[in-house]
């Protein structure tokens, strides 16, 4: 009633949520077993940045949107160069895509289906 059956697998969100909450409680429990004898205000509470000093200017720390996934976009640069070239912003090209899709659809429907 509550879940979904696909005939192949099943999905029960309530059970999943209960499990998720259970694991969350477990994780919090493990966390609460951690050491409490660390010294505040010393190097023990500092952020560990591969041994580098933590920069003081907080404003400069924010990673801006274009810098995220730089590596991935760079790795896919061949794909992105081609796909961006298709989105020219020129209306005539968009109309050409429409005519092309129409022609292709005719060919498929009349010849194949």
């Amino acid at each position: 009633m509550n879940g979904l059956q696909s005939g192949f697998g099943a999905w029960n969100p309530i059970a999943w949520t209960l499990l998720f909450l259970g694991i969350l409680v477990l994780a919090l429990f493990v966390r609460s077993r951690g050491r409490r004898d660390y010294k505040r205000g010393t190097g023990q509470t500092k952020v560990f940045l591969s041994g580098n000093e933590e920069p003081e200017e907080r404003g400069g720390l924010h990673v801006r949107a274009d810098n995220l996934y730089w590596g991935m976009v760079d790795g896919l640069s061949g794909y992105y160069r081609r796909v961006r070239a298709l989105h020219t912003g020129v209306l005539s090209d968009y109309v050409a895509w429409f005519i092309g899709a129409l022609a292709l659809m005719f060919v498929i429907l009349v010849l194949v289906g």
Partner: protein
Amino acid sequence: MNALLVHAPVLLVAVPLLGAFAVPILGKLGRGVRDAFIGLIIAVTAALAGWLAADFFAGGAVPFVYQLGGQSTGIPLLSGGIPIRILLEIDGLSAFMALITALITLTGAFFSFSYWKNRSGGTLYFSLFLLLTAGIFGMQLTGDLFNFFVFLEITSIAACGLIGFRVWLRRSQEAGFKVMTLYTLSGLFVLLAIGLLYSEYGGLNMGYLAGVLGTGVLDKVALGLLLTGLAMKAGAVPLHMWAPDAYGEAPAPMSAVLVANSQASLYAVFRIVFTLFGATVSAASLGWILIVLALLTIFVGVTMALIQSDIKRLIAYGAVSQIGYMLLGVGVGLAVSGHAALPDYGLVAIQGGLFHMLNDAACVGLLFFASGAVIRAAGTRNLNQMGGLAHHMKWTTVFFVIGAFALAGVPPFNGFASKFLIYEASFQLSPFLSIIAILSSILLLAVFVKVFQAAFLGPRPAQPVAEAPVGMLIPMAVLAAVVIAFGLFPGFFVDHIVTPAAKALWDGPAAYITTVVGLGG
């Protein structure tokens, strides 16, 4: 049946239309009167749609027709076997789509009140908003191809008016011109197809046409014109180029309603391939056309979203990719509906595709609303210039995260429930399909992590920003509640709403046809 309920199909079109024409007059009486009137109109429309759908689904989802201008509303007049009246036909799919439209327009209108509080141009905006609402309901409820074209053009004109009515913004004018040209072009080809079908069979009624359509070349040309024209309006890759312009440049609440508009075109695609041409054209080849379109849409939409730096354009590409999931689900269902064995997963795929329409409307609406609140607070749409908004906009952040997780298909939100059905069913047709779908879903999560990191995380902004007003938060909260409810209790909604809609497609056009032409012979 209740007297009001009998007339509900036509009232869903007529009441927003009445509002659209009365708003400019009432606008002269002051903003309070105008807003109260718009709220009343939209609330009445949504309540009628909800009531109609509830009664329809509770009553076993038996299709019925509403006849305009006849001696009675029910039985269509036949003249020589051809229904000539203007008919609205409600079956499971129409009622389901009306429910989606009601949800989005209701929340969109109430979000708009707050959005237009300190801006000018509200009267024109709401007039066009109601016109668009009437057009979308008309597209979903009509049983007549030509009226469908009229409603299609009403939505085109109203949508482009809404994209470009802020004439002082240069990019909105560019978007308005491009979108209007492409909408008109696709609309004219749809009209050409309707003209072809009319000249061949002498009828415009969908039920009648479905019963007499042949398999000649002319029918296939008409099908090609209809499919391509409507795929353009739905925003399927490679005909999607207008969609980011339209969603991105429209006012934020409008973008959500434009998605509902695209879904109405998608509904028409499903109606045409299943009901109109269901009995005549090879289901496998049509289904694979939809599947190829779907894969392109999913992949190109998500990857293009990843590199955007304009928050609304990013969400717009995300919305384009979600159109692909709906096409994938229904396309898989169509492709297997031609098999002699009729495997069960075809129905599951259609259920997934349709359920995803409902879920997508709620999540994308939520994301566009949140982006409106973010842009209002940050004063910019460029993600590179945002940061740290979560310090001041806690509720908006929560709603954005819910919408983003749901759209990316993270359990236990609703997007996962529908994508689960799509993955499982498409896996049984071909594992490649579900691999692409799952991979793109993960990429979409990465896309929204980018937005979340860039806009909401980071150090406090230099000037403190204000949380979105309550008038914006409440519509977002309603959509978030819908997202969570559909996510936690998908079984209930799939059983009661989605399955009748999916069965209307899966069981073939016989029920739709006999409702119109079976009675008079």
